[in-house]
């Protein structure tokens, strides 16, 4: 029982880490690049085609990042869940 509890605790922490990391990326690509740092990025980053970088991030880049974030979430969570199952089997 105690072991299951520990495994579940590990699982929840791994889960929170996964969500945390992805949300940081989410914030940086959208609010960060698209709004807060937009002007600086326009000046200092290479243009995408003829679009300044910050502008491009706000209109297209962020959306592409979001799709990638969700893909990452799917694979990462599947790995965490596989670990949990593995742990639980050891207990049994």
């Amino acid at each position, binding site marked *: 029982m105690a072991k299951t509890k520990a495994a*579940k605790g590990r*699982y*929840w922490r791994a*889960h929170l880490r996964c*969500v945390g990391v*992805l*949300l940081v990326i*989410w914030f940086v690509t*959208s*609010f960060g690049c*698209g*709004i*807060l740092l937009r002007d600086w990025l326009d000046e200092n980053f290479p243009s*995408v*085609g*003829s*679009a*300044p970088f910050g*502008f*491009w991030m*706000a*209109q*297209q880049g*962020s*959306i*592409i990042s*979001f*799709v990638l*974030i*969700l*893909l990452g*979430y*799917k694979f990462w*969570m*599947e790995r965490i*869940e596989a670990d*949990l*199952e593995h742990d*639980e089997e050891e207990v049994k």
Partner: protein
Amino acid sequence: MTQDTWNFIFIGLSFALYIGIAVRQRAGSTSEYYTAGGGVSPFANGMATAADWMSAATFISMAGLIASKGFDGAQFLMGWTGGFVLLTVLMVPFLRKFGKATVPDFIGERYYSKGARGVAVVCAIFICLTYIMGQMNGVGVVFSQLFGVSLAQGVVIGSAVVFFYAGMGGMKGITYTQVAQYTVMAFAYTIPAVFIAIAMTNNVVPQLGLIGEYTAGEEAVPFLEKLNRINTDLGFEEYTSGKLEKIDLFCITAALMCGTAGLPHVIVRFFTVKDVKSVRKSACWTLTFIAVIYLTAPTIGAFSRVNLIESLNNSSYEKAPEWFKDFEKTGQMAWVDKNDDGVIQFHGPGHSKNGTDSVFVVTSTVKKPIYPEDSAPEEQRVGKYGERILANKTDLSNPNELWFGNDIMVMANPHMAGLPKWVIALLMAGCIAAALSTAAGLLLVLSTSISHDLMKKIVKPDMTDQEEVKYARAASFVALTVAAYFGINPPSTFIAKTVAFAFGLAASSFFPTLLMGIFSRKMNKEGAIAGMVAGIGFTLSYIIYFQFLGGTKAQYLFGISPEGIGFLGMIINFLVAFTVAKFTPAPPKEVTDLIDNVRYPGGKETAAQDH
């Protein structure tokens, strides 16, 4: 064949398809009515969710909004797609694991109180109603343009169709119709964009065309540069520069994101798949499908704006293209010859001393062109050059003569690019699909909120399954009637604006409450209820004050407009909830067990059909 014939064929076929699917898939039990029995494949659910998501406002007005707002339009692009990330990683896997049919169900059990459930039901009904009004209005706009009927008649026809297949078919019926609707929408949106991208930038992919070169002119120039130059020549802001303060843009985007993550009609869509694993898979599909449309929207907006200006500005009315006259008839475009030279002149706010560009005097009640009665003598209705005369008072403080609504960028896009008639008909079918699919999803949440959460759980717990479905159908009829009324008399001019408020309200109520319900084991019912009431109360009064009671820009709190205030409302919700929870008793053990259960996969996975 005429355009009307094509329209009838395309729309007729799509309706036959939707209704055919709904009849085949109609729901028999509550579980099929609420969650389609929980056995939809992740791919199909992904498509259906994308259709649910893509409202009429998104489909018809977003491209135009982005075209006129330029960089600031990113609030919609990032807001609505970014919110989906929040929804997927913070909400749906847990709510799916919980396994009940509605969002108020979760709130009711997690906060062990009928009061919390009641507040959640009221919030759900309110949000869905605000949102569905915009949809019904969108349906009305399309129908009125298509068949030459009035807006009111258009709304009534649309409501009848939605009621028929959403009210009858329940979740099972609408899921498969939404799959068909997404397909129609995706083609209707991207095909004109591809054609126009080829014509203007010689690039098959519109997204690359936007950041590529404009090749339709004498020499190739970067497209965005061309657009900026056109804008500044006419006295508008550069397309790539924004007008909004950073803090306001930040808050609006955040409110849209969090609101999106709290939208009940999108959350319940994920209750239709088998398990938590399928939820994540389905979410990937959904966002991919949504991204197809969202990445196309700015390109349509930008291309049509250039096209519109090139084909209308400084051309004489008599030589103006036929489509302009068609849209004049439907009241979606208007021209007032202020300097009496027979030539259409389009100017931005930069060309007038007081910084306005309104064609006619805009008041809080009159924001659109109004026209003399049909019975008025002809010289009051038709001008010297054959133009349609407005009954509005002309605004002579600026030189701008051309008025058009935001929806014109999508609606007139194929006309402007000279695309074949079937493309226009497809676009019409797409507009209707967008409005119907979202309206159906919302209607379902509205009806289940009333039948399940209100009637079954609070008022009359001994109801049978069949009775509950009957209540759900009756409730959807009532909800639709209310929505249709407000669709005909919308409280705000821009369709998208109406929707934006629904997001603010969702951001300040559902999102924080659900989030705390999952991630905080200490949050109790007193805290949650106080937070919800404070959040939505604050947001609602702010919106009402500035929308209806004549609040001015100078009075904005921290410079945040009513569209962005939901973000602040959300923070207030969190603060109030945690403060109250600190001084009131902790939640009982059953509830912490429930939280533990939704957090972990496996174990007792409650099937969606249990109530």
